[in-house]
């Protein structure tokens, strides 16, 4: 297929995906974006959310990521996630655990900027919790 490109999903612990894909939906900080082949070179941070990967074969895989950033080039897309798991493997417990840690961090935060960032992170996580529980 002409419009397939390389997609890599990497977490600090391992390389999760390295495949030819036709389409990737990324939860970027400034809103969701769909990456196709020949995308303009872009670097963006991502927020906690679901990454939807459409393989060249047409199969769709979903991954849950917890923040990170993406490096997009016309012929490839690399997503460096802080933590990533297959959406099916995600349990409510792990999410809940993360929400609690984030809340604890928020309690400790002192300066406003840091606080806002953590609050945003917490909102995203709670939002994500809504999606996963509903599914």
């Amino acid at each position, binding site marked *: 297929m002409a419009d397939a490109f390389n997609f890599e999903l990497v977490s600090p612990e391992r*390389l999760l995906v390295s495949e030819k894909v036709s389409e990737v939906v990324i939860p970027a900080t400034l809103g969701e974006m769909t990456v196709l082949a020949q995308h303009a070179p*872009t670097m963006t941070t991502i927020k906690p959310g679901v990454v939807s990967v459409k393989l060249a074969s047409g199969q769709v895989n979903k991954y849950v990521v917890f923040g990170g*950033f993406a490096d997009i080039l016309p012929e490839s897309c690399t997503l460096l996630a802080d933590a990533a798991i297959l959406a099916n493997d995600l349990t409510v417990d792990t999410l809940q655990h993360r929400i609690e840690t984030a809340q604890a961090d928020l309690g400790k935060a002192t300066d406003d900027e840091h606080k806002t960032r953590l609050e945003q992170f917490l909102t995203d996580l709670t939002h994500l919790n809504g999606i996963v529980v509903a599914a």
Partner: protein
Amino acid sequence: MPSLKDLKNRIASVKATQKITKAMKMVAAAKLRRAQEAAEAARPYAQRMDKVLGSLAAANAGNAGAPLLLSGTGKDQVHLLIVATGERGLAGGFNSSIVRLARDHALKLIAQGKTVKILTVGRKGNDVLRRSFKDNIVHYITFREVKQLGFAQADEVAGKVLDMFNAGEFDVATLFFARFQSVIAQVATAQQIIPAKFEAAQATDTSSSALYEYEPSEEEILEELLPKNVAVQIFRALLENNASFYGAQMSAMDNATRNAGDMINKLTLSYNRQRQAQITKELIEIISGAEAL
């Protein structure tokens, strides 16, 4: 001259020791493979992080408003040494070589009139450094209870380091760990992590990075990535350290097993000699007794 019974006891005890060292060697070998796999699995992330940050940093290096993590505080008065060692001993020179490197570095800095603060990760290094640098150790983190080393642990260390940096408690941070070269060679290494240094600061990349679109702005991304980079560097060091530890332990235990084998051979030889001497002595006594009749 030890008696036959003494020799027999000693052989038995050395054999028991040999069994233990052999078992430890096997366990270390199995864990080494796992640790090596983990270190290899973490490589892609670190490499890409390096590449991205390298090009971002090259573009931002001249800016006056560049983040402190990149440009430094402009001073180098207070040094933080992060010394990562193992939780356990019985690994040959593993722990002591890291500690020695850190200690030399600390002494050199102190001689230059700098202030040295030490953060120890791992029990062994902490025990040794506490003896000579009791007042310099500001924090101690142990992963004794941790079974599988994960990114969360590195994040914990990085969080502590970044908190201290943001509070202005130090200017330069250096990380000490053992780089895993092969099963028999682990090299104690010092690596400066704050202000950040990039091995791959390619001049060619700056041209391509100019074409990038940044969402949000370049500065914001850089600001978010730099703390992450500290965690990644520490994570990589911890993984390398882990692999090195098992490598060192494996070769140390291999040596110990071989030494025990040699010792058993020697002891068995003298045991047999003595037994033969005793039999000969008894025979002589019988023969001379019979002749006397």
